[in-house]
């Protein structure tokens, strides 16, 4: 187990390093420079000085080695568009993304699980068919478009929710902490619902299939034959075993907690990682882009690893084979 874990960790680090390298060279080799081509033109003199100051006039290979060296010391560099260390910018954006993604995942998993179990129990009956098709519809629409519709209906036609942003910038400082948190939750509702509903549609499909597979097993028949109530058979005997594949979903959703949703964050003006990285790409803010790629790929790899470890812990039938990755 330990040897396997070490090997997996080494592979994970190699993958993240590869992603960072690809991102680094992609963004540096792209045409254009951080000095800005169109808007806010800098004079060539200033531009040259800035490039020298940030070391962008050195050969690319030298810059790459310097970047890796700094990275190995935990230094993510300095953002020149934001005039602050990249680590600070990330530290500001990550809690916002974590809030939104966490709330969305909560809706996703709770709703998806409940729907999936319900659909499996009522398989091929009316309720299952209707929910299945509604879920398919949610799964088929662009997520940001659903966000736009929810905004239109619940913020514009019915003024129940704010039009965007994360909290009221004027009101919040004057309110008590509790009221401020409530204001935050109020702003959070629509974006979290957008992401959560689309996610729940997928989760329900997955959970329904897992549940149906388990319900056909012998031990479920045994439980029924013992005379247990159907409720107990479904919620205790079947559900526990149908939760195993859930680990895969968790592993897949894990990166989302830190990378966030680029489009939905844009729709709702939510200043999280998604918006940070998009803005950085547009501004050619090299260090921020590479750092976002680092975070994103790191979370993907970590999510996979976490899922594998959880499987090994949760399911004694699974013997970890290092062959299978």
């Amino acid at each position, binding site marked *: 187990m330990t040897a396997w874990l070490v090997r997996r960790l080494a*592979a994970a680090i*190699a*993958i*993240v390093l*590869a*992603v960072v390298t*690809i*991102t680094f060279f*992609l*963004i540096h080799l*792209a*045409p*254009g420079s951080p000095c800005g081509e169109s808007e806010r033109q800098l004079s060539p003199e200033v531009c040259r000085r800035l490039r020298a100051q940030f070391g962008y006039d050195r050969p690319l290979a030298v810059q790459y080695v310097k970047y890796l060296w700094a990275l190995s010391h935990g230094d993510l560099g300095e953002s020149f568009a934001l005039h602050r260390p990249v680590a600070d910018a990330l530290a500001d954006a990550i809690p916002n993304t974590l809030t939104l993604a966490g709330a969305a995942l909560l809706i996703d998993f709770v709703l998806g699980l409940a729907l999936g179990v319900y659909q499996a129990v009522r*398989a*091929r009956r009316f309720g299952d*068919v209707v929910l299945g*098709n509604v879920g*398919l*519809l949610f*799964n*088929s*629409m*662009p997520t*940001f*478009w659903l966000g*736009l*519709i929810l*905004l*239109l209906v619940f913020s*514009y036609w019915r003024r129940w929710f704010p039009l965007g942003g994360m909290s009221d910038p004027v009101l919040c400082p004057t309110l008590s902490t509790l009221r401020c948190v409530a204001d935050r939750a109020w702003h959070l509702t629509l974006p979290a619902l957008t992401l959560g509903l689309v996610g729940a549609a997928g989760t329900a499909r997955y959970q329904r*299939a897992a549940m*149906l597979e388990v319900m056909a097993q012998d031990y479920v028949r045994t439980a029924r034959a013992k005379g247990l109530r159907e409720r107990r058979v479904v919620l205790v005997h079947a559900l526990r075993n149908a939760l195993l594949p859930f680990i895969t979903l968790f592993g897949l959703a894990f*990166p989302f907690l830190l*990378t966030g949703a*680029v*489009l939905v964050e*844009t729709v709702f003006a939510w200043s999280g990682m998604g918006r940070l*990285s*998009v803005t950085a*790409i*547009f501004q*050619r803010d090299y260090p921020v*882009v590479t750092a*976002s*790629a680092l975070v*994103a*790929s790191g979370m*993907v*790899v970590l999510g996979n690893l976490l899922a594998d470890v959880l499987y090994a812990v949760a399911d004694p039938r699974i013997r970890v084979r290092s062959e299978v*990755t």
Partner: protein
Amino acid sequence: MSALTWLALAGAVAVALLVAEEAHRRAAASAAGRRFLRHPTATPGVFILAFFVTLATAAPLLAPYDPAFQIDIVHLQNHAPSAQNILGTDVYSRDVWSRLVYGARISLGIGTIAMLVAVTAGAGVGAVAGYVRRWVGAVLMRGVDVGLAMPRMFVLLMAVALWEHLPLAVLVLLIGLTGWFATSRLVRAEVLSLREREFVAAARAAGAGPTRVIFRHVLPNAAAPIIVSAALGIGNVMLLEAGLSYLGLGVPSPLPSWGSMIYDGEPFMAGAPWTSLFPGCAIALVVMALNAVGDGLRDALDPRKETA
């Protein structure tokens, strides 16, 4: 819309019905086809797809206006749906229905071509990685690991934002080339089990080289996961294109794609919701149909994985 356009629309519906009917008739003749039909939404899915493909191919007949034509820039901005413009007009006084019809060409076209690129790459790499065991396969799969760890939207955004004014063809190619990693894993898994079968050994014993074995004997038998991921892949690409367009990085104006139509209409969402509502509905409908057909195909082609 003139009577002629209505007639053409009725014709399109009729064609789609005929196609769905014919597909149903043919499917009912085989066991696999009947498994496909058992999926309740598969046949309606075929109908919706046939309808939109007809729209795309017969666009000049069905669209009363040129998609870029500005009917009356002064009086017809963001005009609500009416007898003249059944889906209304957008801010540049262009007919939303006409743009939707021509947009079907671009959106479905991008989806199909990018999917073909992705499936070809995925099947090729997966087959080689599964069949050639030594270091070649290992290196390829490590590459796939890296590809899967790169967020697709992020890579595309970088490419599109950094190389401004990317030609549409390059964009489509890029979407395809960032979408094959998962397919290659599926295909590799399939090939790994196929390569141990007797018929492969027989082909090799008969003197077939690795290329012939892979393309003539192994890949045709791995067709099921490839076809299913192709059906689901088109929908994914369409959603991706919509997302890129929403950030202003997709299909350049005035070319109509459904994603760029949402983008054009978004600032006027409150006053003229039809401009982004209808293209979004079109995307949702087509992607839903693709998913339904994909699910049906999975049941039909892969009886081992019986999903209810």
